[in-house]
């Protein structure tokens, strides 16, 4: 038997104060990022903010400073460039257009073809999104996150107990906010794909939490001599090997996506990667300790009685 971690006996409950402070900071950061996003001050992708993104391929490389001055001269204001080394690809992002002008890609292709006559250009992809769509997507994303939260609380409350549901929901909410905060700090573009990753990792982190809770429930039934804290600690320790293995295989798959999946998937995979780490952390140090704090403050016996 090749044990990953062997038999462990880590006191997770005892470390809860440090974890709560650390997570509190993460949540604050997440809230800050959320407000910035809501006010439109964060690095919002064009699917939320409106604008255009055009991927231009050329036979020969184009200098970015030249490209920038060319576009600025022709009335394209807030332009961002991204180069793909060795591929002669240029990603041009134009943000926050007041009204969608239509045919932006065609206009830019024309401008470049005129300016560099000896170079051949081709539009590989382009997207233009009007601000009204962005507003709707923002609203949809918030509704989606809220709905999945409610769904999760209801399911766990149904399967376990209301307290478990709330604790799991807080931990999941913590994960979403924490990852959002980290993404914001890394100055990654917040796109629809990132929101998708956030919801996916909500599901992932929840599975982790559920596995721990499941064991807590089971142990509460048979170990009635131990204190609530001891039961929680040994439960986490018992499933530690599983959490670690699942985290490891998931991380491997996500790393493969991150490295080989291409540019579109890059930030998506990064978000998932951060999310898996944070999600694993929160099921150990946040979800279960919340259950402990809540359960013990109201006479732990109550909780245990329910499962006898």
């Amino acid at each position, binding site marked *: *038997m*090749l044990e*990953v971690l062997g038999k462990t006996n880590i006191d997770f409950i005892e470390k809860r104060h440090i974890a709560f402070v650390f997570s509190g900071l993460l949540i604050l950061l997440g809230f800050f990022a959320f407000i910035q996003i809501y006010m439109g001050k964060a690095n919002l992708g064009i699917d939320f903010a409106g604008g255009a993104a055009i*991927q231009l391929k050329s036979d020969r490389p184009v200098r970015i400073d030249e490209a920038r001055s060319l576009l600025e001269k022709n009335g394209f204001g807030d332009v961002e460039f991204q180069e793909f080394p060795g591929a002669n690809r240029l990603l041009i992002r134009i943000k926050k257009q007041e009204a*969608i002008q*239509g*045919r932006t890609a*065609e206009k830019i292709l024309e401008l470049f073809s005129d300016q560099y006559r000896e170079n051949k250009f*081709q*539009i*590989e*992809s*382009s*997207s*233009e999104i*009007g601000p*009204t*769509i962005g507003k709707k997507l923002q609203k949809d994303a918030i509704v*989606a996150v809220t*709905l*999945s939260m409610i*769904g*999760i609380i209801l*399911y*766990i409350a149904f399967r376990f107990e209301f307290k478990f549901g709330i604790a799991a929901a807080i931990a999941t909410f913590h994960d979403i906010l924490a990852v959002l905060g980290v993404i914001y700090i890394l100055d990654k573009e917040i796109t*629809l*794909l990132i929101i*998708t990753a956030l*919801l*996916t990792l*909500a*599901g*992932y982190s929840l*599975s982790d939490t*559920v*596995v721990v809770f*499941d*064991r807590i429930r*089971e142990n509460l039934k048979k170990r009635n001599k131990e204190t609530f804290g001891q039961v929680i600690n040994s439960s986490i320790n018992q499933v530690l*090997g*599983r959490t670690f*293995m*699942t985290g*490891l*295989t*998931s991380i*491997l*798959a996500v*790393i*493969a*996506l991150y*490295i*080989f*999946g*291409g540019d*579109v*998937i890059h930030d*998506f*995979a990064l978000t*998932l990667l951060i999310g898996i780490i944070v999600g694993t952390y929160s099921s150990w140090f946040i979800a279960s300790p919340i259950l402990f704090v809540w359960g013990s403050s109201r006479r732990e016996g109550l909780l245990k009685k329910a499962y006898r």
Partner: protein
Amino acid sequence: MKKGIKTRSYFIALTVLVSIVFFLPSTPAYKYMPQWWKTYLPNKGINLGLDLRGGIHLVLEVEEEKAVENVVERAAINMKEYLNEKKVQIDSIRRSGPTEISIMHSQPGTKDEVSKLTEGFPNFTLKEKKEGETILVLREGEAKRIKESASAQALETIRNRIDQYGVTEPLIQRQAENQIVIQLPGIKEPGRAKELIGKTAILEFKLLDEESPLINQLPPLIPSGDEEKTINEFKDKIPDGDEILFDKIVNAETGKVIKRPYLVKKRTMVSGDLLTDARVSIGEFNEAFVSITFDSAGAKLFDMVTAENVNKHLAIILDGNVYSAPRINERISGGKAQITGNFTTNEANDLAIALRAGALPAPVRIIQDVTVGPTLGGDSIRMGISAGIIGTIAVIAIMAIFYRLSGVIAIFALGLNIILLIGALAALNATLTLPGIAGIILTIGMSVDSNVLIFERIREELRQGKPVRLAIDAGYDKAFLTIIDSHVTTLITALVLFLFGTGPIKGFAVSLSLGVTINLFTSIVGTKVVFDFINSLRRMERLSI
């Protein structure tokens, strides 16, 4: 032999077979299959999303208010004629708001006559009746009806145009109240298609005003972009019932665009909705033009208009731009006319399509436009597949190292998982997108979770000294509820993503939820069979786990 091993094995084999049959059309091997196979067995396979296949995705917004304004505008012109016929003297009539018409009448006694207008125009109600001014307003229900029908009609017209343009498997749908989603996969000239779809294509024939003194003051040519300025400059001099429209002139050598202003009478003499046909023709100098044929009502009207206005100029106007303003030399019977302009053959062709399919009831605005070139999609698929293969190898290696023989059984479950997932995607004729591929890869990483849960349980049971067979059964039993719980929670989020996501995100949600569901089957039924089978061959003293 333990009960049911055979049945379960056959069932698994059957699911694999069905998956392969469903997925086969998406593989290169499909073209070697016999004809009866292609006819009677599934032949659709997996759809590739626009992001993988290339094409355009447009969301159009129908400017419904404009449709209402158009109706009100036209009603105002009709009211003017109506009052003329009844010999009621008024000073002016114009649209004064989105749904309002204001009529100025200084002659005494006209007030009551004017307010009788609502009898002839029952869609309008009297809003204000003052000395000298009467204001009519369009009924709210009618405005609503116009808006509703504008979107429906726009959808129909656009579908017509796309059909005639020739696109395979287009998707044209209404979304929300006034939005239309259009997906054109694999299209070659996206710019041209967008131009055709977005054209309002309102064709009008209007007379030039050749009596106003203004025509001598208008500059013969102005630079492009100065239209607004020119209109403002002469604003006060434009006679009631006239407007200034422009003709676009392109210099063939330099490509420079200049505009020629025309003073045009607002009243539409003949309009494009009376057409039966529009075709491209090539003239003697190899120039393309569009010949149009009116229906019988249109032909009669055209005949009458030309007969009454010989020697005057008739402007041909498309979407508010003058194309030409030829002189009517003689009465034109037979209901045929030509639209000339500096067209390329493609432009003339697209114009003919737009005229045949009819005008949009209101202008449309493109509010979302995603175009993906075909090469990029191919790259994405290749990258997705290599990421998938590498991810799978890594997961396989880890499982084999940590769980030995049991790990190999889990790998068998993983393979089963992938085959069934692809088969299910094909069976549902689902659309695979780039995030969808990511979803599959993520499923690969997460799918071993159930087996890890089971294996860790079995290990615990073994540590307590249970015999192998009992440990395996207990491991599966005890892990079962945990596995259900953790899968359902993932499914909840996937479901929400499916409900709220569009396009690529929906693809992700589909792969993820299918992956999770199938995983439940493969890990609980799939691996258990293998354990039971091995166990039935010989009594296991020790388990390689």
